[in-house]
């Protein structure tokens, strides 16, 4: 019997890392072809302007310049069949004015492309961009959600409103009204979710390569969604879908910013097709900060009605959400993804949610790590702390009093939001986090410091979050008017020599799919994970898939892998039974080997059957050769991971400086395939959420100009700002899939912003501070301590 290793549950190093760490892997910018032309984007320097004229003659005369195209010229060339797509029209009457890859008459945010230079080198393109002269007729910019809602200025001059849609989810209006009739405690709170710049480690980039005789195009793109991109490029450009091949080579992070269909992708494909030359572009960091979509951008209003003991009777929430200048792929759907989570982990009898989406003259928003769910978690977790204060009990106690099923284990709970939570077991998870945090000791230390005036106030904050993961059931997504399904596809093949090739429809951009999928195969098929290779991220190798976002890879794609492996085992079993001249029903499959029950001495390992299936010399009658099976898995429900995060901050009473000094996270993502990958996901996610609480904000002035579009002023924290995090887990298997997995990609971010801000507000409570906008900058904290406005 062969040894199996590296199965589900093993905290093994990632297979991907040696190639990534040594630079062997290629990213889009590393790939070059002969005769390629570089695009240089001429971008609008105003947030809202009509284009009067564009003089390209100076740029065209520059060395190395091949051509310069304005939006008008491109429109006249009829390079595309449709505007850039929005796949999530959340209401039937949603406004969705056309968004062309290059602005034709009017540009509506700083950074919108108004002309494209094609040149032999990147430097020549950049030089030529400076010589394109654009005359603008400046218009009043709508530079904030409040301005979009309250002023008469219009982000789109041809529309008579900035409100793109109104969406609501109020399952039982009468019950909701009753809950808010004279509640013993009534929390009313408003929070701002500032805009965030995704800032992946690898910038976005594209390279479109036409076939020499024309007709076929290969697009290399730093994308999370090669499969979706293929469909969308075909639909947008009118190019035949079967002539397109999309390859996402090594992709260095995305956090949602790489799940869009971007102007540069459409431009590269259509210009390469038109010119018969390869066309490429890599964004600069300035372009990444101001032109690639941003995250968050919401004004939140939340109310809780509770009885005298703090038991919640109802929750209602309203969002004003910033779409930015245009609807991108899932822009309007992002707030809706959070809508179901405004009740958090609590038993809420009555619930209502509404959202107004507004156009502004700012960079479009779209999915960013957690997409709608961190915002929701923030609102309910901040609000429940406020409720605790009103009731006069601790933040832990208010949570215990309101947990679904009293904090005890439940399965398939129908929430007031109408979703069915797959499983949860909240109280032990909280207990564990508070124990690791030494919560009682922390509270004592906090009291001591408050009394002694030690100079550094201690703040303790907690967040008990729940997340919707495994973005799937296609029907549920259809019910929300989402433009695609949520299934995932997988193929598993046993090669003649017994090695295993897995074809994954979900596409990694740093998550470690190759390792995790190998581990699933190792456990299922009884082979070593070293014997498994995972193919992915190339639509020619992996024609079917719905890619990676929304913490869906494992809970949907990983399950598909597991199911395809089971189908391979079933077929192999028939071959083994045929060889043993036994009935398949009499065979058992243990650690990769088939044997007749009761006679384990005579056995055949599944890897030995690959060759028999390949030669097909002696297969059961009617059986097709080869061992290869595929599955499209569409789960019956989402998965709902949860957890408790505890943040401890120290606030310098003199400077207002906030230091995150401890962080405890006890997460429950169901069954873990690779605990080391889970931990890495959590570390990154926690820091990304803490970054929203303490550092990151995309700032625009009143005219819609970005004022901090560089890493000098947009503060992404480094390891130096983060304490050594203490992570631990509870395991409550999901009922939504046979592996019991839930997903961990966004959990850290969903838990951490609220935990950190609850800690900051807790530290400042002796100063009478009840709330603070994110990020809690030292100046803001200092002013709050002075009793000034934050």
């Amino acid at each position: 019997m062969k040894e199996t290793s590296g199965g589900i549950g093993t905290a093994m190093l990632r297979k991907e890392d040696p190639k990534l760490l040594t630079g062997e892997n290629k990213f889009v910018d590393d790939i070059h072809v002969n005769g390629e032309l570089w695009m240089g984007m001429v971008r609008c320097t105003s947030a809202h302007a009509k284009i009067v004229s564009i003089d390209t003659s100076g740029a065209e005369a520059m060395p190395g310049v091949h051509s310069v195209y304005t939006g008008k010229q491109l429109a006249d060339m009829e390079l595309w069949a449709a505007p850039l797509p929005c796949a999530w029209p959340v209401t039937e009457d949603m406004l969705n004015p056309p968004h062309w890859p290059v602005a034709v008459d009017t540009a509506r945010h700083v950074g919108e492309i108004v002309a494209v230079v094609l040149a032999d080198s990147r430097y020549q393109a950049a030089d030529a961009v400076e010589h394109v002269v654009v005359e603008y007729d400046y218009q009043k910019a709508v530079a904030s959600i409040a301005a979009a809602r309250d002023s008469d200025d219009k982000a789109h001059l041809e529309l008579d409103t900035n409100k793109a849609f109104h969406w609501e989810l109020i399952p039982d209006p009468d019950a909701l009204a009753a809950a808010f009739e004279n509640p013993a405690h009534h929390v009313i709170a408003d929070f701002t979710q500032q805009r965030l710049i995704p800032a992946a480690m690898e910038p976005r980039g594209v390279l479109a390569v036409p076939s020499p005789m024309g007709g076929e195009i290969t697009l290399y793109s730093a994308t999370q969604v090669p499969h979706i991109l293929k469909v969308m490029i075909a639909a947008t450009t009118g190019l035949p879908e079967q002539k397109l091949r999309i390859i996402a080579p090594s992709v260095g992070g995305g956090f949602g910013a790489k799940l869009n269909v971007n102007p540069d992708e459409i431009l590269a494909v259509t210009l390469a097709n038109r010119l018969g030359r390869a066309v490429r572009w890599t964004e600069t960091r300035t372009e990444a900060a101001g032109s690639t979509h941003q995250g968050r951008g919401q004004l939140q209003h939340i109310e809780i009605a509770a009885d005298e003991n703090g038991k919640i009777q109802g929750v209602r929430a309203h969002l004003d959400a910033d779409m930015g200048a245009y609807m991108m792929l899932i822009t309007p759907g992002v707030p809706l993804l959070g809508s179901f989570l405004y009740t958090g982990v609590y038993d809420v009898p009555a619930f209502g949610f509404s959202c107004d989406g507004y156009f502004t003259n700012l960079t479009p928003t779209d999915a960013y790590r957690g997409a709608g769910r961190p915002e929701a978690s923030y609102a309910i977790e901040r609000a429940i702390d406020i409720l605790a204060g009103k009731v006069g009990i601790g933040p832990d106690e208010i949570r215990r009093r309101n947990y679904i099923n009293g904090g005890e284990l439940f399965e398939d709970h129908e929430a007031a939001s109408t979703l069915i939570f797959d499983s949860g077991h909240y109280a032990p998870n909280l207990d564990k986090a508070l124990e690791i945090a030494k919560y009682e000791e922390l509270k004592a230390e906090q009291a001591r410091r408050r009394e002694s005036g030690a100079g550094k106030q201690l703040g303790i904050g907690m967040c008990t979050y729940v997340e919707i993961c495994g973005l799937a059931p296609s029907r549920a997504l259809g019910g929300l008017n989402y433009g695609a399904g949520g299934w995932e596809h997988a193929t598993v093949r046993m090669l003649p020599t017994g090695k295993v090739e897995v074809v994954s429809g979900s596409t990694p951009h740093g998550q470690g799919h190759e390792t995790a999928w190998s581990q699933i195969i190792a456990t299922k098929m009884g082979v070593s994970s070293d014997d498994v290779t995972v193919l992915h991220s190339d639509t020619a190798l992996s024609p079917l898939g719905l890619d990676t976002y929304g913490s869906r890879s494992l809970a949907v794609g990983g399950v598909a892998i597991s199911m395809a492996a089971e189908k391979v085992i079933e077929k192999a079993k028939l071959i083994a039974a045929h060889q043993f001249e036994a009935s398949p029903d009499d065979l058992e499959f243990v650690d990769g080997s088939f044997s007749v029950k009761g006679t384990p001495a005579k056995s055949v390992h599944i890897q030995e059957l690959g060759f028999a299936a390949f030669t097909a010399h002696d297969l059961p009658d009617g059986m097709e050769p080869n061992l290869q099976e595929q599955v499209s898995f569409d789960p019956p429900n989402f998965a709902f991971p949860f957890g408790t995060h505890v943040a401890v901050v120290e606030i310098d009473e003199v400077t207002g400086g906030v230091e995150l000094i401890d962080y405890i996270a006890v997460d429950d993502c169901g069954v873990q395939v690779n605990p080391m990958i889970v931990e890495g996901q959590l570390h990154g996610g926690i820091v990304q959420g803490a970054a929203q609480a303490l550092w990151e904000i995309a700032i625009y002035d009143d005219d819609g100009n970005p004022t901090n579009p560089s890493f000098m002023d947009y503060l992404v924290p480094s390891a130096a700002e983060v304490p050594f995090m203490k992570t631990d887990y509870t395991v409550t298997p999901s009922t939504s899939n046979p592996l019991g997995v839930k997903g961990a990609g966004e959990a850290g971010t969903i838990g951490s912003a609220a935990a950190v801000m609850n800690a900051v507000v807790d530290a400042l409570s002796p100063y009478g501070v009840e709330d603070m906008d994110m990020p809690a900058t030292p100046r803001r904290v200092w002013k709050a301590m002075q009793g000034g406005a934050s």
Partner: protein
Amino acid sequence: MIPAAFDYKVAESAEHAVQLLTEYGDESKLLAGGHSLIPMMKFRLATPTVLIDVGRLSDMRYIRRDGGQISIGAMTRHEQLENSDVLAEACPLLKHVASLVGDPSVRHRGTLGGTMAHADAASDLPAAVLALGGTIVATGPNGTREIAASEFFSGYFESVLAPDEMITEIKVPADTGGWSYQKFNRRAQDWAIVGVAVADGGSGISLVNMGSTPLRASATESALRGGAAAVDAALMAAEGTSPPEDHNADAEYRTHLAQALTARALAEAGAS
């Protein structure tokens, strides 16, 4: 993020660098560690047509003690200051300040001469040299001259260095009294929102990011000389400054920080 075209020359000595500066004039820039100049070029805020690389002049990397004075070669990297035994003994302020500049990659490229010439009011080391009462040695076509740090900085990213001069050495006094550097920022790698350097037990106090140049906290210094208590003198730290306003701080907050950090620095330096 794509710099404009430029020509690149490697200087073989300080004299050669000066020769090249004379030859190419205003359009040229000296390149030392490059961690300020290159980003400015990438943003096209600086567009020199000739870069004269002096960063390879390794004989200009030294830290020597001559009696009561420490001489530091202009191309000495921050990392060398940070790990210098000479400074540990004779000028721990400079060693400590160097350890707080940027991040490790910046400290392994950046040079003391480069940061002085860049004359950024928000930089750490120029303020430290100013507090120490240091001297800048510059070489030009007519030979070498010495400029007191207090006379060196003339404006926003400006110094009295002539276009054809190059800093060759920085001198600071050895074995001065109690010292402190209080740097307040939001991330370890950032410039100071406000910084305060105290040298020689409080006789030299300088402020980072409180105006267009590194500044001496003159009012505090003279109050201390006049016998004022440190806590009271610290309240005068921002007098005569014109603090900039940015995303991190307005003038009111910077003024508060200057006072508070000066009080902390004086306490740490042993001034009472």
